[in-house]
């Protein structure tokens, strides 16, 4: 149950981040998801990424909708404000929170039902506004809490455990993100934490909407032989376009010349993109789209940092909102006062 606290064991030599905090400071309540659920691996990656990013826990905010994925906001960042809202509305609630206080680090957790069915409109419009948030879709192709119906991301012709065949084509959040103008687009796999953690960290650095679609098998309803979202299928069909390296020290001499590209993020820090496919260019939206499509035709799921534009304006930059959070603005600077009211009323006489 979620109210059971994990033991926080302090031992000598426990790794600490720049704030002097251990990874335990970024953990949450015990997961109530099924044993082996892909989402729990994402939760672990979240914990690790926030820890390694040295973000003060109380400067982070996690918001989710409804579904197995959305439950996970209780399982990490236990020392941060969290908000488990209603189905499909996480994007608008996060937009409002960011409108009010732009200085916190916002992570929105959603699933394929939450983002691609009931919340498709909100997902699309949060992208359009380029809301400055990390948006993670824990994508398993099924509705788990209601016992395994197909979601909008299920592949055409995919079979449920019971043998039902999906008659509809899928909605791919990556292609949607590319089409709608998302400024940071990545895909990863819950079974590959080393791949996912750097993407989360880069997404947190991105000034704008950072979309990470994480293929995350549902062990109870969608991990069978005919599934296209099972661990087995994922391991045999993933195609990595590029990996991210967050720290220069991690770059070893093993990489051939020209395959590691530095990218300067909005905050001035530099991340390194290690291309595994020379054809791939994550700064060209049209080519990225083409790349994803071509591989999809071959039955492959492209992962990695697929598109990045660090020069675009986020919602507040477009709006030209003051830098200080609106929540901190003193009332005296917001209310024009009685004498101004008298002046204003002259035009109504």
């Amino acid at each position: 149950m979620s109210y059971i606290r994990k033991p926080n064991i302090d031992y000598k030599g426990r790794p600490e981040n720049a704030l002097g905090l251990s990874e335990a400071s970024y953990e949450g309540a015990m997961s109530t998801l099924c044993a082996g659920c892909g989402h729990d691996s994402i939760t672990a990656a979240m914990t690790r990424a926030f820890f390694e990013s040295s973000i003060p826990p109380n400067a982070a905010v996690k918001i989710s909708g409804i579904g197995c994925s959305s439950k996970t906001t209780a399982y990490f960042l236990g020392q941060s404000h969290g908000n488990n809202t209603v189905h499909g509305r996480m994007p608008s609630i996060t937009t409002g929170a960011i409108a009010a206080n732009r200085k916190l680090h916002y992570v929105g957790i959603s699933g394929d039902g939450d983002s691609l069915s009931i919340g498709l409109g909100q997902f699309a419009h949060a992208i359009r506004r380029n809301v400055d948030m990390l948006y993670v879709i824990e994508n398993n192709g099924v509705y788990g809490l209601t016992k395994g119906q197909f979601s909008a991301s299920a592949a055409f012709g995919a079979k449920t455990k019971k043998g039902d065949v999906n008659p509809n084509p899928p909605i791919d959040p990556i292609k949607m993100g590319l089409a709608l103008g998302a400024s940071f687009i990545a895909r990863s796999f819950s079974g590959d934490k080393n791949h996912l953690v750097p993407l989360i960290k880069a997404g947190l650095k991105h000034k704008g909407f950072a979309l990470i679609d994480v293929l995350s098998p549902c062990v109870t309803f969608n991990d069978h032989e005919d599934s296209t979202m099972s661990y087995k299928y994922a391991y045999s069909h993933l195609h990595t376009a590029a990996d991210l390296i967050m720290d220069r020290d991690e770059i070893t001499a093993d990489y051939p010349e020209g395959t590691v590209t530095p990218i300067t993020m909005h905050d001035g820090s530099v991340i390194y993109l290690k291309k595994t496919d020379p054809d791939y260019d994550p700064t060209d939206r049209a080519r990225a789209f083409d790349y994803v499509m071509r591989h999809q035709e071959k039955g492959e799921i492209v992962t990695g940092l697929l598109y990045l534009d660090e020069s675009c304006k986020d919602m507040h930059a477009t709006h030209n909102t003051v830098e200080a959070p609106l929540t901190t603005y003193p009332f005296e600077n917001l209310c024009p006062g009685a004498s101004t009211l008298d002046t204003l009323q002259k035009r109504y006489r």
Partner: protein
Amino acid sequence: MSATQSRLNDFVVKVANVNGTGSASANSLLMKAYFRMGIPVVGKNYFPSNIQGMPTWYEIRITRDGYAARSGEVDIMLAMNAETYAQDIKEVAPGGYLIYDSTWPRQQALSRTDITALGIPLAEMMNDAFANARVRILMKNMAYVGAVAALTNIDMDVIRTLIEEMFATKPKLVPANMQAIELGFNYARENFTCPLPLSVEAMDKTAGHIMIDGNTAAGLGCIYAGATVGAWYPITPSTSLMDAYTSFCAKLRTDKETGEKRYCIVQAEDELSSAGVVLGAGWTGARAFTTTSGPGIALMGELLGLGYYAEIPMVLFDIQRVGPSTGMPTRTQQGDLQICAYASHGDTKHICLYPADPRECFEMAVNAFDLAERFQTPAFVVSDLDIGMNDWMIPDLEWDDSYRPDRGKVLSDEDLEKITKFHRYLDVDGDGIPYRTLPGSHPKGVYFNRGAGHNKWGGRTELGDEYQDVMDRLLVKWATAATKVPKPVEVPSRQGAAWGILTLGSCDGACREALHHLNDKGIAVDYMRLKAFPFTAKVEEFLASHERIFVVEQNRDAQLSGMLINETPVEKAKITSILHYNGTPMDHRQIVSAIEAAVAKEAAA
């Protein structure tokens, strides 16, 4: 032709026109002229849900007694729309006047013998005076203003001043507009006996007053309340509220040098999203609001439940229009009383404020933010199209510079330092209101907000008694709110009236006028106008202390009566509903006749 009784400063002018012809500015000019002469006015705009080419009417009541509603009659009709001509003629009260454009023959102008038809060749005069086709159409409107000025004795100096103000930024347009006005004025002077028996004379009853619509006043109220986040989806008749907030923000909240904005407005993709933005911003600590109408409230239902149960401040302006469904978007109604009060699944109820005029829109906007934050819950300002979009004459808006927002029970970092442990949903002082913290605050203040079942400590629960404990505490909070919302307005007739009228919102003007007429007829009735839900103790006292209560409201299903029966001990048999729901603003006649009929029935019994 019937003789017209001479009436000074007490008659109704109505203009029938085609929308999209620029008549709005001519009509407001006409109304403003009477207002500037110190005579109280009531203006009602009847406009179609259309951009161009459909019938539109503008009604101006000149009322020396300062009534705030329509009279229900038309004394001077300017029939400028051929399409509605027959209908417009019918509407003129016996002894009244019909003004028409005699450029074209109008057989029907003579179809009534009890009114006087005055033909003015408006189009012909404009065609002779102006070359441009669009200008001719616009100037025709100004010409009828001139004619009405002559016929009703408006001071031309007042009109000239208004025209100069209207075109202050484009002074080149003044001569052409004055030319058109004078053409109409002179034609009337030369061809008819001016003024008519229905005329005006300067008074001093508008000093200290302004003419403003409720949406503008509410938008200004949001500025004064310190609201910083506005989220909305365009919908008639609420759009002009966010427009007003936006333009006041541009003027008052934008740094002149950097252009930086001390506000954030999100035009959302739908009302689900605008409610979500308000929730997110309210949870994070900003004063946030949305503007909408009935269809928007219907969509926001689920999020309102989250606001109620997770206890998040939200302010919503519902500018009611005619429902159900699309209904009549440009007509007025009070059809959202119950959906605002009880929106969402499960047991939910929401604070509602009911303004009766634009001044109260301004005041209640501020009040709504205080209540929403004090009680950590959605608070509605339930206005309507009549209040929101018509210009009303109201006493000047006032502001007390000592006002400071009531942010409610928000723990600061200093507060959190001092406490051992923070529990989000614990009622520590018995008023049913727990303390909250804002994201980003001291680590001790961190909590997990959820719409799912929770216990008083803030933890998730599926245990019946823990769930019920929180639901019951929300009722304690509701009872506290009933002591803090604005009290009703009472007008006692005389000691011991057995009957009372109970109403809310834009019925006020019609009810008060009805009270005068009833009083003249020797019928004593007490009066109460509600300003808020939950109902206060005063409301229960009023219901208990009268044998019979006439509940006046603008919907078919007696929604207010239903709420009174649901929420108070009142016996259903004591209530007689007076219902007006055809989409027009209410006038006093229906109320007077219903109560007179009740008196007669009682006398016969």
